[in-house]
């Protein structure tokens, strides 16, 4: 397939504006400012069918329309570059190798929605990305793509990088906004949604890095063209970061709807040492596990939802037959316990209890009734305040359901069967 999102990343100095412009970069911005009204841009994005690539899959055109219709001023445009979902490293590739694609996408989005100021909320763990983005923004200012009266029009837009400081919860858009306001990253109740009441309670568009990197090409080649790539109800190219026990871990750009099996066995080269596949988390740490007989599923939002799991960030985590499923689930729930902000009880207590129970099972002192307790905690966590708690129990509950025998084996033998001692 023709590379769209990764079209530039192999080029030498692909992060520099000259290289980006040489291959047609910022032509979409010119086109938008010279030939299109903000409404035209929104319409084109709606036609494309683009859905947010951060995890929720919300239609981007619709989000922009909501923001553009709000009359409060000023409006803010925020790029969510707080890529914190475990085993997700797709945005890092764009940030470091093609920063201008996301910046151009952002400027176009700001024009469409009437935003005057923008921030890239970058996770603190990407210091190299920070330097690259700051340089890229400076280059864009020099060329007149940012600042006052962009390309001689009435449109002005200022853009800055805002560094997070190591909090997964800040990837949740309202927690991100709190953090941008200089507070602890705790989520807000929704509604109101950020498009109406976000940063400083003003209309704020929050879009993921990969989502924005799609925008210039949608403008260049048209929404209709874009809508014909991949799954009809969820079109476009998608970046899939694949890691764990595959021969070739990395970020693969494939059409939405590419079967999971093809991604693991063709693109990522199959399982290390040609072992047997055991399990896959298909959409980051908060997705429910899939077993080897379930991997023919197309990788898009609706298909994975139908399969009882989710696309999320598209991060594919692969386990082979030598890996312990209890240990894997434990590691993920330990992560969520650490990252729970503590604001609501189901998440704060639920993650803690799941860690305690899984630890005792993994250490050989678990009980058979623990499995029912896990499922009951999991059900309660559905009532958490934000998406973190609502999804954090998925890897645990789904592995209990699908690998029940392995859990019971731990309980009955009083030890982890995968440990040599």
């Amino acid at each position, binding site marked *: 397939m023709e590379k769209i999102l990764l079209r530039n990343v192999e080029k030498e100095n692909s992060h520099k504006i000259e290289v980006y412009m040489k291959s047609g970069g910022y032509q979409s911005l010119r086109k938008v400012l010279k030939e299109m009204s903000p409404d035209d841009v929104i319409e084109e994005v709606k036609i494309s069918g683009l859905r947010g690539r951060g995890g929720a899959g919300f239609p981007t055109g619709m989000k922009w329309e909501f923001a553009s219709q709000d009359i409060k001023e000023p409006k803010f445009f925020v790029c969510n570059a707080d890529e914190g979902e*475990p085993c997700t490293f797709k945005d890092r590739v764009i940030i470091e190798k093609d920063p201008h694609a996301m910046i151009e996408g952002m400027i176009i989005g700001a024009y469409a929605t009437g935003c005057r100021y923008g921030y890239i909320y970058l996770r603190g763990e990407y210091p190299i990305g920070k330097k690259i983005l700051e340089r890229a923004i400076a280059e864009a200012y020099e060329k007149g793509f940012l600042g006052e009266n962009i390309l001689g029009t009435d449109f002005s837009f200022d853009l800055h990088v805002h560094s997070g*400081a190591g909090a997964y919860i800040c990837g949740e858009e309202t927690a991100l906004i709190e953090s941008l306001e200089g507070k602890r990253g705790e989520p807000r109740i929704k509604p109101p949604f950020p498009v109406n009441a976000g940063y400083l309670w003003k209309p704020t568009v929050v879009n993921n890095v990969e989502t924005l990197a799609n925008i210039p090409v949608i403008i260049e080649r048209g929404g209709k063209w874009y809508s014909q790539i991949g799954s009809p109800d969820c079109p476009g190219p998608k970046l899939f970061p694949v890691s*764990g026990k595959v021969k070739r871990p*990395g970020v693969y750009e494939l059409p939405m709807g590419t079967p999971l099996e093809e991604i693991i066995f063709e693109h990522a080269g199959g399982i290390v040492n040609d072992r047997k596949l055991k399990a896959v988390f298909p959409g980051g*740490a908060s997705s429910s596990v899939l077993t080897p007989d379930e991997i023919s599923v197309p990788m898009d939002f609706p298909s994975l939802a139908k399969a009882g799991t989710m696309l999320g960030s598209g991060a594919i985590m692969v386990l082979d037959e030598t890996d312990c499923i209890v240990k894997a689930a434990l*590691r993920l729930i330990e992560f969520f316990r650490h990252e729970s902000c503590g604001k609501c009880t189901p998440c704060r207590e639920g993650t803690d209890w799941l860690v305690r129970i899984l630890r005792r099972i993994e250490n050989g002192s678990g009980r058979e009734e623990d499995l029912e307790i896990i499922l009951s905690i999991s059900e309660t966590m559905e009532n958490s305040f934000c998406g973190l708690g609502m999804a954090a129990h998925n890897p645990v509950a789904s592995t209990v359901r699908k690998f029940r025998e392995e859990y019971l084996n731990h309980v009955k033998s009083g030890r982890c069967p995968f440990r040599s001692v």
Partner: protein
Amino acid sequence: MTLEEFRLEVKKLKNSGKYPSRKSYLLPALWIAEKNFPQINSEMIKIIAEELEIPLVEVEEVARFYAMFHTERKGNFVIRVCTNLSCMLNGGEEILKEFCRLLGISPGETTPDGMFTVESYECMGLCDGAPAVTVNEERFSKVKVEDVPKILKKFGWKG
């Protein structure tokens, strides 16, 4: 950096016009402290609170909330070993153990000479290079147990 220099940096930041709200300068101000001092202590917190005109407690709660801000003394080199799923599956826990064994400390601790802090860290987005380690801003990918002494020596470990 002296505390007076720090105050000047915070003033400069506040006047940069980057944010329409004073409080939004809080994380960037804490980053200046994090990068220039071995720990963010009460004096820096006080300076930030004064300059941004926000209550002390609101500075302190933010300093303590975020994992990358060290309110305890850290070493010159902060070694972060990822132990999240893909790194764990590829041996991240053994790498962490080896760093701790060689330096004689537990995860989260700093060597007595103030050189190294070892942290068991969550995903840093380097999963294609699992198991991954960072030392300050430098990355190390596909680290093997035998690479650990080499990494430490690169940063002045004499052991």
